């Protein structure tokens, strides 16, 4: 971790990323500082409690890899959502997009007989196209992004049913594809590697590229961005395309993991992703979306769910946990900022 920080200090353009972290992390009221670290503190406490309670089930390398594995899918979809939220727009179609991709990927192989590579390319292209449609509706037609992406998402639900006639796709999927999600490289599950690579890539884009600077500018003040000569429309379309592609990739990984194409399999990822990204926005920063925060948010939620299930808490309580934590963390950050502003 130190080496990454070190690098960041040396590399970040304008000294932006590390400088802001350094400045914001310990500036402001004590309550504000606490709220920035509350998620991390709670994560550590959670790990300690779970480890003391069930050292054999929770505190094992296998279980940690398991948590990371579970985190990787939500992590991918949340990474795309983070970019969209950074430019100040919403994407409510990601869950449905992931579900559709989860059907398309196995379907293209078993029904249309495409190779793994081609099926993957087509599925990701569909994700990109859906993102581009979202982007055009939001940036060019100026439709409110909540409405536009909800509408497109609803159409994707219809597309899912139309494509499969409501039947799951189980037969005729190559084993090589089914093995991908469970295989490991030097002990690390493939989905974790993919998610880490993608999120690392997004982190680099946001912090070390002029594209990233433009994304932040559009999110910070769209009018000022336009006056600075930034093509605001194109940046917004880009963000929504990224969001669509990563939602599609999430669906691909999910279908490999569950070994079939299942209707509506990833619909629930929408809320989980929003929970993780907003939780992340209250972590280390004061309500600003960022990739590192998103990663922490995803891991936090999955650690909690993992620990609770080891505790024997019924799965129905998981959503209560996720929602409760989200409201608590974002609420704490918001109140802390308001108190500090007085």
């Amino acid at each position, binding site marked *: 971790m130190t080496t990454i920080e070190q690098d960041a200090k040396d590399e970040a*353009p304008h*000294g932006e990323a590390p400088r802001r972290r350094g400045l914001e992390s310990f500036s402001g009221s004590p309550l504000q500082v606490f709220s920035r670290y509350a998620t991390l503190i709670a994560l550590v406490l959670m790990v300690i409690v779970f480890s003391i309670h069930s050292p054999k089930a929770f505190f094992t390398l296998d279980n940690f890899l398991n948590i990371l594995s579970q985190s990787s899918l939500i992590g991918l979809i949340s990474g795309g959502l983070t970019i969209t939220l950074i430019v100040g727009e919403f994407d409510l179609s990601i869950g449905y997009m992931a579900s559709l991709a989860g059907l398309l990927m196995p379907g293209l192989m078993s029904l249309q007989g495409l190779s793994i590579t081609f099926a993957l390319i087509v599925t990701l292209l569909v994700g990109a196209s859906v993102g581009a449609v979202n982007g055009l509706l939001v940036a060019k037609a100026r439709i409110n992004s909540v409405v536009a992406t909800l509408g497109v998402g609803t159409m994707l639900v219809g597309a899912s049913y139309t494509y499969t006639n409501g039947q799951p796709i189980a037969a005729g999927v190559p084993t090589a594809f089914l093995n991908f999600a469970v295989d490991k490289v030097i002990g690390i599950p493939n989905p974790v590697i993919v998610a880490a690579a993608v999120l690392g890539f997004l982190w680099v884009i946001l912090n070390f590229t*002029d594209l990233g600077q433009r994304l932040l500018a559009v999110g910070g003040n769209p009018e*000022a961005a*336009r006056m600075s*000569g930034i093509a605001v429309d194109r940046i917004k379309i880009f963000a929504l395309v990224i969001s669509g592609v990563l939602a599609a990739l999430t669906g691909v990984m999910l279908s490999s993991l569950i070994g079939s194409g299942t209707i509506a399999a990833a619909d629930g990822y929408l809320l989980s992703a929003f929970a993780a990204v907003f939780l992340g926005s209250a972590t280390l920063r004061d309500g600003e979306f960022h990739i590192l925060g998103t990663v922490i948010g995803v891991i936090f939620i999955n650690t909690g769910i993992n620990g609770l299930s080891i505790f024997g808490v019924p799965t129905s309580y998981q959503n209560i946990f996720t929602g409760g934590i989200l409201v608590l963390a974002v609420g704490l950050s918001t109140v802390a900022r308001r108190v500090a502003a007085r």
Partner: protein
Amino acid sequence: MSSAGPSIEPAAGPGDASPSAPWLEVRGLTKNFASIRALDAVDFDVSRGQVHGLVGANGAGKSTLIRCLAGLVVPDAGTIRIDGEEVAIHTPTVAQRLGLTFIHQELNLVPRFSALENIMLGRRKRTRLGIVDWRATRRDLQDTIDRLGITFSLEQRVDELTVAQRWLVSIARALVGSATMIAMDEPTASLSPAEADRIFAVVRHLSAAGVAVLYVSHRLGEVLDLSDTISVFRDGKLTRRASRGDLNRSSLVREIVGRDLQPEAIADAAARETHRAKSAQAALLEVRELSHEPAVHSVSFEVHRGEVVGLAGLVGSGRTEVARMLAAADRPEGGQILLDGEPLNLKSVASAVASGIALVPEERRSEGLFLDRSVSFNLNIGDLKPLRRVSWLPLLHGRRARARARQLSEQLDIKIADLGQPVRALSGGNQQKILIARWLTRDLRLLVLDEVSRGVDVGARAEIHAIVGRLAATRDTGIVAISSELEELVEFCDRIVVLADGRVVGEVSGDAMTHESVLALCYGHAEEHLEVTA
């Protein structure tokens, strides 16, 4: 149009008719902003039903007085009495309760609500079930509607109404709130002559009904026509209080400017002089018959290399609209912009920037800055490509970016604790310098500054003038500068193009370029315009 309105005689100055004490008495009102005395011991009275004209150049103090009465600004000294009783107007709510209503140019209406909903905002009649009783509301309102001569449907959404209709809605809203005084800020600035007549009729009607009207306008003709009393402001002081008939147009201009002038003579001499000086040189920027209805009509002027040209004009003259079209922030509806003789067809700010035209916008905080981002982010955002490690990859060279930001901030003497500091907390002067510095790394051919130094202290103002002047002198960049403060333009510009009502009404340079001559041109035209339309 005016005959269609309520048939009520023009008010015969009820203030004069009743010798009793005025309704509103202001004594010794003083307000300082930093080192600037915006209001200097102003005494000011308003009687019921009086139409009271407020005139003066930008920054003369009339708007500060209004802001004090509206509860937006708390005066440093002085008293305000209403019906003989001293009042403290700390908030707009207090002002409203006292019967003081303010209609600003922006007309604070809710665009998506109907006219009726806007009029009744916050005071709807309810049935026993708690449902809004629109029928009773409309019945009660009928009287007011008739009095104002409103003929359009109140069911229409406000954003579908014309500006004049919106004014009527605002006035109706004030009357429903039982206003005793309505202050109107430039009501006719964007109205057609016929629409303006409608407003004049309403003002006269209000006066006859016992409602006082504070009438703020740069159009002196209408102020003279309407007002029972005129108060002239200059440099924060109320310099002249005149009753109807005491002043004519030229004497009023003299009161505002503080000196006697002949606008036409100045304009002619100045134009000749400019022509002589610059005709040898080809223009950098040629603006030909630029139009954008309703604000700009066929504006033409030139800017030469290394020349600082001011765009002067009163509120509503179209100067900001012209500036925005130059930088492609808005698209012209007609006319041409030529840079170095080449016609430009700019589709976006980005394309203007690519052609070497940059704008420092009027609203610094909302249109220019990324307030929560760092100084270096704000400095570098205008020109990121040269900061790449390799030209075909968007990877930025962090050290080079920081070095460039540091160099810019040192070069312009921007006072910061460090480059990572958010710009929100910086002073107006430092923020403005950042917005200028943003463009300095580019090959800039034309820099447009809308409000060169609004909200900038005196020291930083001189520095900004020096920076821009150096840019013009050393790099041959053409400068178009806008400022509401004519002194600043006179001091800073080589030449001033004066706009009024969206047209170029004159041009001054050299010795003819004085605060008074520019101001006289601004008003001179407003007069002509009214004479034509009256």
